[in-house]
């Protein structure tokens, strides 16, 4: 494991009576692509702004390379940020925008120009070097903003929802540009977003934040398959969440009684106690459908409410007799074998090992 580049040590941020960040304790490793994800107002942008020095922590310490950063002015830090609004200087050309940081740092004119041209070229927008910002398209502006930060050759690059203003097809392309850049340069990226697809597609590790606290830190796969708690499970979506009481615990598995029936789950490391509340999730893509009742195992009989297509993937929204919602995700060509319509009833089933017990907090 590489050494931590940034350490958040019991960091809190209050705005008057409003607590934006309750308590953050985490590390950012050198060279990793870290995404901080959460719903709006969860404190993720505040966290990033504290790292850039634009907000000062109310309590706790932020250390960069073992140096306490709390009282370091933003312009004395080397933490360039790519802004959600891009914040390009409208009265400058593309190249002048890229040169701006170097100019502030007192780099001489010839070197400024050379380095700016190198980065504009790298971002594939050299032909626009003398164009004014207002004449560039969204994607081009995005690249200017990236070049403007990267020309500083920082150790760490901060990105605040940089793709949120782009069209869907551009987002995918920029994601590829960003991951390639990060691998090639070996710079640490801290990427704040509310979009799960962006975070999961690019990041090595993801921090899920909610209400100023960390819900979970882990690889995208860990978070997707093994959400730590109900908040993460719900935020990640495409999860079936079932809550009930523990009926019996038997070695590595337990029986849990819910309003939708009785199910077997693997206990993993979670301490389950008989008669106590417990909940578990099953990813929507691990649930199978069948027209005949499956023999044994975990199953539920549901009515189809609606379907949602995203490309070749379909998400089915179903309800059992008790009104509990289930989601099933599958390939469209799989589904076409069933000839299902809204209101039809069908059996759902899943392997015991597909279920994941949540830590109740």
């Amino acid at each position: 494991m590489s050494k931590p580049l940034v350490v958040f040590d019991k960091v809190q941020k209050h705005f008057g009576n409003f607590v934006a960040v309750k308590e953050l304790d985490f590390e950012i490793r050198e060279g990793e692509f870290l995404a901080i994800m959460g719903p709006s107002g969860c404190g993720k942008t505040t966290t990033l702004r504290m790292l850039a020095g634009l907000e000062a922590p109310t309590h706790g310490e932020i250390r960069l390379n073992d140096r306490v950063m709390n009282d370091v002015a933003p312009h004395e830090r080397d933490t360039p940020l790519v802004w959600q609004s891009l914040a390009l200087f409208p009265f400058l050309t593309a190249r002048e925008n890229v040169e701006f940081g170097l100019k502030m740092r007192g780099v001489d004119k010839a070197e400024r120009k050379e380095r700016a041209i190198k980065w504009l070229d790298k971002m594939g927008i050299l032909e626009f070097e003398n164009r004014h910002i207002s004449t560039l398209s969204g994607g081009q502006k995005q690249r200017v903003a990236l070049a403007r930060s990267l020309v500083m050759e920082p150790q760490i690059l901060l990105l605040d929802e940089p793709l949120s203003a782009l069209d869907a097809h551009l987002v995918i392309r920029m994601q590829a540009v960003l991951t390639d850049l990060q691998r090639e340069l070996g710079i640490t990226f801290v990427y704040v977003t509310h979009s799960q697809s962006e975070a999961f597609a690019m990041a090595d590790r993801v921090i899920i934040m909610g209400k100023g606290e960390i819900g979970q830190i882990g690889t995208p796969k860990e978070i997707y398959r093994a959400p730590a708690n109900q908040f993460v499970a719900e935020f990640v979506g495409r999860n079936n969440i079932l809550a009930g009481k523990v009926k019996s615990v038997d070695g590595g598995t337990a029986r849990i009684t819910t309003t939708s029936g009785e199910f077997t789950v693997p206990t993993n490391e979670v301490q389950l106690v008989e008669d106590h509340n417990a909940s578990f999730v099953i990813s929507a893509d691990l649930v199978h459908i069948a027209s005949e009742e499956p023999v044994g195992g975990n199953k539920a009989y549901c009515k189809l409410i609606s379907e949602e297509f995203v490309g070749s993937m379909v998400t089915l929204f179903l309800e059992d007799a008790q009104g509990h919602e289930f989601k099933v995700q599958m390939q469209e060509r799989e589904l076409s074998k069933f000839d299902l319509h809204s209101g039809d009833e069908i059996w759902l089933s899943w392997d015991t090992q597909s279920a994941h017990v949540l830590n109740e907090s």
Partner: protein
Amino acid sequence: MKQSRSLNFILGIYVVLIFAFVFAPIIFSMIFSFNSQRFPTIPLGEFSTEWYAKVLADPDIWKAARNSLIVSCSTAVIATFLGFCTAYSDFRYNFRFKGPYLALILLPPTIPLIIMALAMLAWLSKIGMSGQLYSIIIAHSVLTAPFAMAVIRLRLNQMDPDLESAAWNLGGSEWQTMRHVIVPFCKPAIFSSLFLTAAVSFDEFAVSWFVSGLNSTLPVVVLEIVQGNIDPQVNAIGTFVFLTSMTLVVLAQLFFASRQIKGLHA
């Protein structure tokens, strides 16, 4: 379609009438400034530039023109600087009593000019600063700074608030950011404000008359001539003052308009 056409026609006539109402006296004054007759009567006499020649030959008028130029240029610079500072403090900071602070700054244009002029005279003579050229500059700066502030504030409101933070984030200190981001962004508004305040100062009469002492500006000289007798020289000076002011105001508008159009793209 038909309805809107007749409506447009009526509106067109309305606009023409308004313009006629506003500009007729000025246009008459211009016409009479080229008229050989001493009294403004119709039918007109011959075309003549004798009044202009007379004006140009008068050293008092030259002196007044020089005074007007010095006053309006100095006022423009001082008022625009003050206006920029207040507009920026409004943009950047939140503090208690900000509302009253802004109201106080915008107050001078709402005070009747005569009251303002009297107050200025009383105060400036109390501290021994009346009757000088700089007295007019001080009074005019007070009078026009609110216009400067309004124009520049409008521009700052169009600025992405992240722009300033972005400059800090890229290593710019507060002063560097002011010089390389805030001022360039406000440049059209700063020019607009310079022309506007210069125009207001150039043809302001009441305050100048009270505080100027012997250092008359052009509008004051005009009054002095008119008080003595009827002299078509006034028409010639009036034409010059009007053209100067209009040029300044049009320049201010051009900067204003060009930045609105740019604003649409940004």
